[in-house]
């Protein structure tokens, strides 16, 4: 009885047509398997890879950490000042006769997101150890728009006390850096990162600012910016810069320090990554280049330098990762 209305023929035909259309629709859909596959397969929340090729941009840390069981041997070399105005020039072959700083380091990936490293620099004979942990990785679907890492280091100088007895305690030789690194990769164009940073030196010189009279700060806040512009698949232009917030460093004519700026070219060949760069800082670790870059680009105080990174996979091979279906 309820189906009585179906007896009126227009509705009957309409219904038949609608049903027939719906079945055609299903047919059509069934035949386009690729489209169906796209619709039915849930896209993985995939991590963005190669935001930076190596764990350093030039001097700065990048958000990259070494893969698990990967060992990285790094040589960071800075020649002397390039320009004659800062002691370089033709008579020491634009700084190539000198070595402003050399750092040799072994760095190792404990997990795919956690790494440690130990290095030794020429400047102040400083020995540094650091831990870096990347706790967020940018994803292709932008659910996580940034990669974020934290880096902490401790550096000790074993050099003979240059102050003539002011380093009364071992702790006077120690400095620390804590840093947050926030990076984003912009497709195949390049990557950019910012690094809010705090450097603490247990001992600072007692010199006062010539006009304001403030003393050098033990603790310094700095904000770093670094980037990578991709040229080809394996080469890029890289740069990093730090702005240090410091009263003592403001227009200090007696004891000037400058903001460290480095520009370089990065090339990757297999397991090697080379950087050739120019930087005004002699320091290679944050504890030195953030507070104590005493040369300026404007007077030729930049140095030619290079970074070499050679990675090895050591120990057992990487455990196979199951991809969630």
């Amino acid at each position, binding site marked *: 009885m309820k189906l009585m209305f179906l007896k009126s023929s227009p509705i009957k035909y309409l219904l*038949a047509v609608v049903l027939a259309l719906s079945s055609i629709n299903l*047919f059509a859909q069934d035949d386009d398997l690729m489209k169906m596959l796209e619709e039915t397969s849930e896209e993985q929340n995939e991590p963005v*890879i190669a935001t930076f090729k190596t764990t350093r941009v030039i001097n700065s840390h990048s958000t990259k950490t070494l893969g698990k069981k990967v060992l990285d041997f790094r040589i960071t070399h800075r020649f002397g000042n390039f320009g004659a105005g800062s002691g370089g020039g033709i008579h020491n072959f634009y700084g190539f006769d000198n070595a402003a700083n050399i750092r040799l380091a072994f760095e190792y990936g404990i997990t795919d997101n956690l790494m440690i490293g130990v290095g030794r620099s020429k400047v102040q004979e400083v020995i540094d150890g650091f831990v870096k942990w990347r706790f967020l990785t940018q994803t292709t679907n932008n659910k996580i728009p940034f990669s974020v890492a934290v880096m902490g280091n401790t550096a000790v100088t074993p050099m003979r006390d240059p102050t003539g007895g002011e380093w009364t305690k071992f702790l006077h030789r120690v400095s620390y850096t804590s840093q947050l690194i926030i990076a984003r990769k912009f497709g195949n164009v390049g990557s950019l990162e910012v690094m809010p940073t705090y450097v603490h030196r247990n001992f600072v010189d007692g010199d006062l600012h010539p006009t304001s009279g403030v003393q050098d700060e033990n603790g310094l806040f700095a904000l770093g910016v670094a980037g990578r512009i991709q040229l080809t698949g394996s080469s890029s232009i890289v740069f990093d810069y730090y702005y240090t917030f410091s009263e003592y460093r403001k227009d200090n004519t007696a004891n000037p320090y400058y903001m460290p700026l480095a520009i370089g070219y990065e090339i990757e060949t297999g397991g090697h990554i080379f950087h050739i760069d120019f930087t005004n800082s002699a320091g290679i670790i944050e504890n030195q280049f953030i507070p104590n870059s005493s040369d300026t680009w404007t007077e030729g105080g930049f140095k030619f330098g290079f970074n070499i990174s050679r990675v090895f996979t050591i120990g057992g091979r990487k455990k196979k990762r199951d991809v969630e279906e």
Partner: protein
Amino acid sequence: MRILLSITAIILFNFVQAQSIYKSSESFVTFFSKAELEDIKAENKATTSLINVTSNKIGVRVPIKGFSFEQSLMQEHFNEKKYMWSEKHPHATFEGKIEGDFDFSKDGTYNVTATGDLTVRGITLNRKIEGTFTVSGEEVKLQAEFYIPLDDHKIERPALVLDNIAEKVLVTLDITYEAYVPEK
């Protein structure tokens, strides 16, 4: 009453149509490159595939980032522009027609070939690929093995690593299918 019958028939017909689709429930895809200096292999469990047994069409979709390597550095290189360029070409696909006799309702082993478009790194080639269906009860297994010549898909073999990467890589597919009802 006739109307009711035809409605039932159409609905039933739709249902039968739907039943003619088989969807992958499990998949295991590997590639293997055998070169003078180095063997490179990787595994992928994220492949999806559909077979329409009415039209005999097959579609396979392999997410490139789903390949897992023993060395993380290798995996990173594999995804780069020089090799697979997975950011630009996230999937390798095959879309083709299956030839040869097979019946998913009868247990047995069927040798088939599929002819169609193989797309790797954005380059589509017409390929004929041989495979085997093994039907046991509700489950259908597809096994296939074929070579992909790297040059054909514009995958570089830089001079420096010429002895590390084979000219063509062997790809194996092992996919299990189940009858699939599309959600409407």
